[in-house]
């Protein structure tokens, strides 16, 4: 039942806001629903930690260490984002950039989006997984175009078409998996991951090859892997900031989660090598292309969305390497990245809102204007750049270690990517945070709290990973990394 | 035992202090003779010093303590140098307390102080002189060190005493490397002591002078101390040259018996060196200032060449 709550609460929320989403108190209600989801997630986590994996509803739902921590992460970031969006979207509403009708759409779609992601994470049925991913695309398409500006519409259009095509290809891949499996498992169970996992060594490799190609291209589009990444910067830059935060922090993770699940199947018991190699290739390409695209960005949210591409590439690369250490690192990287990146998006969104522009050349002196915001932006971008003692350094440290052990050839590329990314992003951040400004000191915004909270968590993870969490990651790594 | 150490030390030091003006006078006299002039006699510098000491010194009102202290520092440093170099005997406490590198350091100390004191008043000529002194210095110092290294490599130590013992001990051996070193050393000596062709000790033409420019503002006893120090510097340089290239006759015995002979021999060496210096100065014309770096560069290269030859021939 707990499990059901997780998906039901946001669904109810979506319906609820479909009616009341335009009211003043909707902002707070949004927090309430997200909090409910988060509590349900925590309760379920406790159960999993004690009772072990759960199968529910004719095995349609499935919770194991691999997805439970993603569920928690999703619920948590959804909660903090709702706290942030309360402050942020209020201002948007008051400044009249959004009318009540659109606020209604916003809230409804926000909850729907959370629902689809949680569904995608918790389902055991790869078909439902696909439907959920498609649903996530559809629900966010309208959010991206929320401002109805030409730019936002173009972004939404790109987003819809590219991700739609990607998702469609993923469906073809799913069908192929089913095709490979239903001879073995029979029509009903051939879509249930648990069963597929059981017989993965008996699935026909030829079909699984084609299937995995389609799946990685399809879901990879949503992860933002190069060269299918071009929807990502626009969608992040044009949508409202809370959406950018959840897109970067959560949706990418979920899509990557899907790929990892299928990698487990495709590489089979024998641990066929090429799916991993494929992921490593995509990962490296993403890291390099994203790093080299960073330097020329002028829009602050665009800048950080490219950095999301880079980090997702890093995680994909690590998953591709496989092995307990690399997979552990990749999971850790997913966690810290989504925390840090959402925090960075919060802050930069605020900065842009205050400055009235997302053009970085016209934003200066944040430190003078508002020290709290200046420090969060500075430390956040340093954290995203993998400066210790923030958690991303820990994960990158582990990834490099694994790479040096397993695939030393890749290390120069990784280092190059990291170095270039540092130069590009830090130059911009420094120009924004420091420098003189005419705008008078503003009181620190109420919602600096979520970003600070995230940064604090990431900071802690860099210095000390709690035992429970470590065990949990190791467990998940065992599942995900053959 | 220790007493005779102290005696030797004291005697040599006093000898250096006393002989410095005479050496200057002797060189001037020789130059006069070579120039078909009668000259003022060897004692002329002594008279000058006495006169200067009597005069009341005039010090610029902007002068700082550094300006006043410098002459004493220069003088004392030169006395110390005179005490360190084994000119007549090797068994001396101070000679054992410092080696060739320390000696070079001592010269650097005097140079730096002289230059700083010259810059103190902020007159155009003095600061120009300071610049030129430092220019000569930073080129001459490494050359000097390189010269000292050649015998140091031969004897395996930078201690002048060890060098003297080693070179004198092996009888009259010709080290080709030492030839290079000697040539380089001569050039360094000329440059460091403001002799021709680098600087003309007689001149007072402001634009060309180096050493004199430093002393423009000094008078009375301060000028006297500086001039005396300069004289001792020249003597010490000759003394080092003797220790390195003509170490024979420097007593290494314990007793004091050998001292008079050693002193006499050293005096002869000094006189010869002074005369030679006079000849060189008469023959050479002054270089343009821009040529000075090339001159010292040559000295430096010669010294390095000496080192390499030392390695190549092992001798």
């Amino acid at each position: 039942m707990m499990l059901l709550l997780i998906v039901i609460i946001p669904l109810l929320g979506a319906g609820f806001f479909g009616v009341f989403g335009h009211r003043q108190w909707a902002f707070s209600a949004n927090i309430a629903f997200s909090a409910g989801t988060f509590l349900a997630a925590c309760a379920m986590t406790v159960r999993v930690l004690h009772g072990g994996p759960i199968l529910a509803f004719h095995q349609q739902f499935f919770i194991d260490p691999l997805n439970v921590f993603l569920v928690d992460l999703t619920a948590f970031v959804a909660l903090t984002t709702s706290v942030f969006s309360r402050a942020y979207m209020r201002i948007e509403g008051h400044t009249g950039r959004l009318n009540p009708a659109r606020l209604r759409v916003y809230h409804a779609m926000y909850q729907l989006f959370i629902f689809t992601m949680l569904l995608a994470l918790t389902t055991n049925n790869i078909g439902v997984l696909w439907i959920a991913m498609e649903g996530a695309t559809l629900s966010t398409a309208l959010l991206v175009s929320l401002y109805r500006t030409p730019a936002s519409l173009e972004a939404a259009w790109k987003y819809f078409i590219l991700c739609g095509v990607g998702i469609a290809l993923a469906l073809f891949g799913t069908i192929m998996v089913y095709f490979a499996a239903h001879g073995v498992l029979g029509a009903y169970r051939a879509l249930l991951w648990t069963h597929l996992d059981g017989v993965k060594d008996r699935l026909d490799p030829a079909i699984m090859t084609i299937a995995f190609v389609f799946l990685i291209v399809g879901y990879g589009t949503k992860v933002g892997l190069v060269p299918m990444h071009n929807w990502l910067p626009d969608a992040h830059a044009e949508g409202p900031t809370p959406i950018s935060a959840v897109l970067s922090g959560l949706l990418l993770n979920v899509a990557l989660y899907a790929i990892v699940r299928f990698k487990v199947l495709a590489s089979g018991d024998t641990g066929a090598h090429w799916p991993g190699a494929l992921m490593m290739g995509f990962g490296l390409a993403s890291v390099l292309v994203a790093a080299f695209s960073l330097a020329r960005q002028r829009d602050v949210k665009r800048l950080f969305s490219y950095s999301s591409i880079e980090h997702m590439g890093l995680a994909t690369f690590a998953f591709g390497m496989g092995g307990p250490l690399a997979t552990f690192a990749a999971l850790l990287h997913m966690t810290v990245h989504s925390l840090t990146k959402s925090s960075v998006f919060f802050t930069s969104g605020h900065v842009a809102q205050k400055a009235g522009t997302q053009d970085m050349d016209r934003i200066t002196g944040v430190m003078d204007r508002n020290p709290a915001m200046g420090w969060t932006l500075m430390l956040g971008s340093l954290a995203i750049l993998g400066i210790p003692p923030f958690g991303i350094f820990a994960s990158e440290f582990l990834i490099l270690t694994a790479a040096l052990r397993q695939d030393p050839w890749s290390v120069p590329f990784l280092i190059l990517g990291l170095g270039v990314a540092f130069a590009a992003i830090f130059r911009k951040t420094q120009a924004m945070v420091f420098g003189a400004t005419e705008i008078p000191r503003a009181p620190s915004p109420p919602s600096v709290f979520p970003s600070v909270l995230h940064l604090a968590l990431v900071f802690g993870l860099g210095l000390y990973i709690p035992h429970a969490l470590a065990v949990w990651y190791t467990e998940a790594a065992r599942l995900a990394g053959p | 035992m220790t007493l005779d150490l102290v005696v030797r030390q004291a005697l040599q030091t006093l000898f250096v202090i006393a002989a410095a003006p005479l050496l200057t006078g002797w060189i001037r006299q020789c130059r006069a003779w070579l120039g078909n002039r009668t000259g003022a006699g060897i004692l002329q510098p002594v008279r000058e010093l006495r006169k200067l000491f009597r005069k009341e010194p005039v010090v610029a009102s902007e002068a700082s303590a550094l300006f006043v202290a410098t002459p004493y520092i220069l003088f004392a440093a030169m006395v110390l140098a005179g005490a360190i170099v084994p000119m007549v005997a090797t068994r001396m406490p101070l000679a054992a307390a410092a080696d060739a590198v320390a000696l070079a350091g001592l010269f650097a100390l005097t140079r730096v102080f002289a230059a700083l004191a010259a810059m103190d008043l902020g007159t155009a000529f003095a600061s120009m002189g300071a610049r030129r002194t430092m220019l000569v210095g930073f080129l001459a110092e490494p050359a000097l060190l390189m010269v000292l290294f050649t015998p140091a490599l031969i004897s395996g130590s930078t201690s002048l005493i060890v060098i003297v013992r080693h070179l004198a001990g092996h009888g009259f051996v010709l080290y080709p490397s030492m030839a290079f070193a000697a040539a380089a050393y001569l050039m360094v000596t000329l440059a460091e002591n403001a002799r021709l062709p680098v600087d003309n000790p007689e001149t007072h033409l402001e634009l060309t002078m180096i050493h004199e420019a430093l002393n423009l503002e000094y008078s009375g006893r301060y000028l006297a101390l500086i001039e005396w120090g300069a004289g001792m510097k020249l003597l010490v340089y000759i003394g080092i040259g003797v220790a390195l290239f003509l170490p024979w006759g420097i007593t290494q015995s314990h007793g004091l018996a050998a001292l008079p002979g050693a002193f006499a021999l050293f005096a002869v060496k000094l006189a010869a060196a002074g005369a030679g210096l006079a000849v060189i100065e008469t023959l050479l014309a002054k270089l343009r200032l821009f040529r000075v770096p090339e001159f010292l560069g040559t000295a430096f290269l010669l010294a390095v060449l000496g080192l390499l030859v030392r390695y190549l021939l092992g001798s």
Partner: protein
Amino acid sequence: MNVPIGLPLGLVLGALTLWILVAFASLLIPRVPRIAPAIFPLGAVGALLTAFAGALALGGPPIQMVLPWGLPGLPFHIRLDALSGFFLVLSGITTCAISLDLAGYRQREHYPAAARIGLQYHILLASVALIFIADDAYLFMIAWEAMALSSYFLVVTDHRTAAVREAGFLYLLIEHVGALAILVAFGILASRAAPGTPLAYSFGALHAAAPGPMMAGVVFVLALIGFGAKAGLLPLHVWLPEAHPVAPSPISALLSGVLLKVGIYGLLRVVFTLLPAPAPWWGVTVLVVGLATALFGALLSAVQSDMKRLLAYSSVENIGLIAAGIGLALLFLAYGLTVLAALALIAALYHSLNHAFFKSLLFLGTGSVLHATGERNLGRLGGLIHRMPQTALGMLIGTLAIAGVPPLNGFVSEWLMLQAFLKATALPRPYLAMAIPLGAALTALVAGLAAYVMVKFYGIVFLGRPREARLASATESGVWERAALGMLAVFCVAAGLLPAYIIALIRPVAHLLTGAGGRTAVATGGPAADIVVAHAAYVPSVLWAALAAVGLVGVLLVRARHPRSMRRAPVWNCGYPVLTARMQDTAEGFGQPIRHIFTSFLRIRRLRPGPDDPEPRYESVVEDRLWYVLYLPLARGFQAVFDKARLLRHRRIAIYLLYTLATLVILLAFAP
């Protein structure tokens, strides 16, 4: 020394906690101004604690400890051995003086950012101490980057001017590139460890990894790049002359005095204690790079007109000398001449200590001058010895020390360095044995240049006439600043007069790193505290006692014979009546001979006055050739790649769909 075994480590940890507390306490300064005067003195106390702990550790056995934090399977290891101890002493004493100066500095400039400086400065101190005691790569990297960041924030204290930001960015960028290199170096070592241990990052495990010569070479090169970037070795020195001038002076002192030494520490730690026995080419590389750096730094510092740039380049020079010593030590070690290696290492470490003292001294003094006059350009200073006599005295000592003039400490390390070079004849390879004397020659040349530079520096700033009218209003600096200067000056003199005791401090380190047994080539001690290398003695105490005696006797005699005192009068100046400050030699003028001699090494921009200029000023700016040879082309290359990467962005969705289709087709075509 029979002290409780854990005491030194305990002291260091105590100092760390104290610093952290002070750091966060200083956040309260705006609210509770009362606490402000206590902040920096407390920091100084912490610094003294670390210095004391380091001194204890030098005598005692190494102490280890494992903290419960860190990555799973990789807790934090800390360890305090002789090497850490020595550097703790170095940084402790220096930072103590700097803290004292800051105590006054904060009172002087009523910084709005007093709180910020207090916070970051103490975090910086803590991270530096942590680097010295870190015993695993992860903790080391954390401390390392913490140091980089906090120092960066201190450098950009005055972040409203663009130049400061640019310098800060360059600093942190090079810093970070270096950090990546170090990270990979550690990673390679760890990847060579036993397969069972995925995270073999404790220094013990890294040492046990014992990679083959090939891999060891790679690690060595990476370490040299990483730590060289920190220390400012060629060609990664470019951040120094940019960052030092823009930083507040005490921070410049910290950068030059301590942080550069952290780079040296890292190099020693990795190359000597983590890697297996060195190959000869390592030593040659370090030696050559070091000498090149030294010469380059000396030349460029000779032609600077900005006080702090001049000092920054002279730091480059000194680091080069230190590196040369280390290279020599490696070379000796590679051929098994541990005793000589110990000698070279002692010379290098001695010079590190000296440089920490006198360079911090000079930067602090520069800070006082800067505050008193608001002027950094040598061409606008002069005659300050009359306005700020005590500062001038302290600076004189610093100047003589860095000029390598006896009886001060700079000369001692130079002496040891030259002795080490002379011992190179012991090398079995003739071509090496022949090449090394050239090294000695270069060292001597560099020392001479250093003297030239410092005479220029001191003479133009403190002597002569004030070149600007407003200098007349300059006043002596505060008590705290003078206390800091005095402290460092005393240490310079002490290290110059009592080398035996300093060497006694360093010897355990030399033994630890070279494995030379009880004896080293340099004998010390004796009643006169002399140091002897191969019969060549240097006994400063005796020598300078004698010098003082002679000087005194001279004075007394002269006074006794001619009691009349001097007469004060206007400057004679060859009888030329008018004398203005503009007749003096300028900084450019003083540098002219160097520019003239080494013109091919330098890139000079001359700004000549126009013919009808009422106040003609000749100015010549000398630029770093490496910018134009190396960095600008590199930057241009990256720009080009950025533009290429931009071509991937296209306006049409169709193109993106085409990417997808193409990817699909290619993958299907090549899938197994």
